[in-house]
């Protein structure tokens, strides 16, 4: 299964500063079409398409929208998550840089469907140089009358990875400390300012206009049983051609990493960034789909010259630094992980700590408040499974 262009269809084709070039590529036709449909009709198309969230968790988009639509209340919100904080992801940046209009259109369709008059785009502070472009796209759409009755505001993050997590993001928009909330209540019931809210990743929303125009059935032809459509991957690390690639879901990892990106001498691949999974080279024929591994589509390739403990240690340092500090397992557990991995890296590890790491990983995965703490131990768990001897070499006296 090859590359395909759905999400990136207009990238490099239109002028991201000029709405007219977007119009010639069917721009805003989907929004017009959606407004001629009932909300239930739009939700039905999205559900039929099988579109799942591209921000990492893979939640069915249609179900999310339906939830917010059916929650009681006149005041509702739709949010676009452009925080793109996951290590090794840069696809949302590429999308906004090249085609901000499709994003605006997707968010406007979400707003119409959910019944929200206000939308937010939460842009990571490091992308503040995209602010002008994004504002320009919103303003042009507004002037052209596409956003009547719907307002889009941009909120800048302040450099915290946790603020990409949906509940912390909402706290941040509300002007509070970026910390996760417990769920339930889910955002579709009580999200931003405790009002029904949907939150979607940039890439998820990029698919929406295409689905509305061409129908959910068309979209559902691509991909696998439980992963429909395409996915945009950010490939980096020890590869000859790093960059953004769009592939039909279910394509083999090998095709992307060795074929398109030209990687050689691979030792292991991290799929999904810091909170993603690590697999050894033997598993390179894994299909890229929600059924196996996907995350937000960060593919970080490490060749044989890389040191496993060094990579895992730095991944854990990142996550420890970015933990919000609210819940015990994540706050305290990450600190211990970092200290212990440092000891193994220096050859001062204790044999019993390997078992303790596994015990702690279980507790973190089972009891942390949000996805950060729940997924944080993956790098340790996976490398303990596939590269255990590297840890054993780190035991003091060996």
């Amino acid at each position, binding site marked *: 299964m090859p590359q395909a262009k759905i999400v990136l269809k207009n990238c490099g084709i239109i002028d991201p500063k000029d709405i007219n070039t977007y119009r010639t590529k069917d721009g805003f036709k989907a929004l017009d079409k959606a407004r001629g449909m009932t909300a239930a009709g739009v939700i039905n198309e999205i559900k039929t398409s099988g579109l799942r969230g591209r921000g990492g968790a893979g939640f069915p988009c249609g179900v999310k929208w339906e939830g917010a639509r059916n929650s009681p209340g006149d005041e509702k919100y739709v949010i676009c998550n452009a925080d793109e904080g996951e290590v090794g992801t840069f696809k949302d940046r590429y999308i906004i840089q090249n085609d901000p209009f499709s994003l605006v259109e997707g968010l406007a369709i979400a707003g119409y469907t959910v019944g929200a008059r206000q939308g937010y785009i939460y842009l990571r502070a490091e992308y503040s140089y995209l602010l002008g472009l994004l504002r320009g796209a919103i303003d042009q759409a507004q002037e052209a009358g596409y956003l009547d009755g719907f307002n889009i505001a941009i909120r800048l993050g302040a450099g915290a990875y946790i603020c990409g997590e949906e509940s912390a993001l909402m706290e941040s928009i509300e002007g509070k400390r970026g910390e996760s909330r*417990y769920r339930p209540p889910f955002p579709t019931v009580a999200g931003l300012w405790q009002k029904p809210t949907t939150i979607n990743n940039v890439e998820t929303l990029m698919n929406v206009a295409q689905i509305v125009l061409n129908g959910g059935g068309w979209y559902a032809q691509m991909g696998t049983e439980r992963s429909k459509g395409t996915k945009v991957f950010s490939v980096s690390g020890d590869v000859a051609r790093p960059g953004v690639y769009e592939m039909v879901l279910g394509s083999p990892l090998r095709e992307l990493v060795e074929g398109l990106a030209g990687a050689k001498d691979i030792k292991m691949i991290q799929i999904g960034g810091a909170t993603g999974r690590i697999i050894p080279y033997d598993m390179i024929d894994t299909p890229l789909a929600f059924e196996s591994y996907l995350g937000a589509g960060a593919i970080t390739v490490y060749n044989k010259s890389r040191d496993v403990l060094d990579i895992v240690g730095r991944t854990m340092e990142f996550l420890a630094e970015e*933990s919000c500090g*609210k819940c*015990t397992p994540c*706050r305290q557990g*990450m600190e*211990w992980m970092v200290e212990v991995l440092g000891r193994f890296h220096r050859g001062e590890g204790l044999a019993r700590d390997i078992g303790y790491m596994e015990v702690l990983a279980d*507790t973190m995965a089972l009891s942390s*408040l949000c996805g950060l703490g729940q997924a944080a131990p993956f790098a340790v768990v996976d490398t303990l499974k596939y590269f255990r001897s590297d840890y054993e070499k780190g035991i003091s006296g060996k």
Partner: protein
Amino acid sequence: MGDITLTMNGAAISGREGMTILEVARENGIDIPTLCYLKELTPIGACRLCVVEVEGSRMLVGSCHTPIAPGMVIQTHSPKVLEVRRVLIELMMASHPDSCIVCEAANCCELRMRATDLEVGLPRFRTRLRYFPLEDENSNIIRDMSKCILCRRCVTACYNTEGKKMFSLAYRGFESKVIYDLDKPVGSDETCRDCDTCISLCPTGALRQPIKFGQRKKGPVLYVKG
């Protein structure tokens, strides 16, 4: 009888709409340990000690903030749950000073009590300690943030019951800290009233009253099992 029926530890029980798992459990005499939770306040959900197993959920579920739903099948003391609770206590102790023997709160420390109940011995996890100088200038409160386990009771209680915001949270991850003002020590002329709310709620010895001459230590003697 309530209107929502569920199964807890194999027994059919019922509760009313809007109740949390914890409330229903307590009403039925099942003791789920908690640390950050306080009956009168909005749930905090930070310590995670109250987690339980709910059938159909991959993760454990915080019982102090999760409402009951019809047909829920809950295990409050399965081996999996108990092990997680033990690790959580060990993690809280991982950076807690070993000064129990001279700590004012030693005989009424909730962390110690929970550790005893769960039969936690020497913690498997040790991290660096967090040292902060003692804040003892105010005549109503002494703060020793080295002992704080970040349960946030003081932050929530001050706001919810006194309508004040003496404390808030700053920094992140392991560096998180309950701060006063812009991370200043509580000084002698600060506005804190001697309402005692936070002091009486702090589960550890992090907050206490300055001892006045002739005053007795608070709390009953702690009997350690085994």
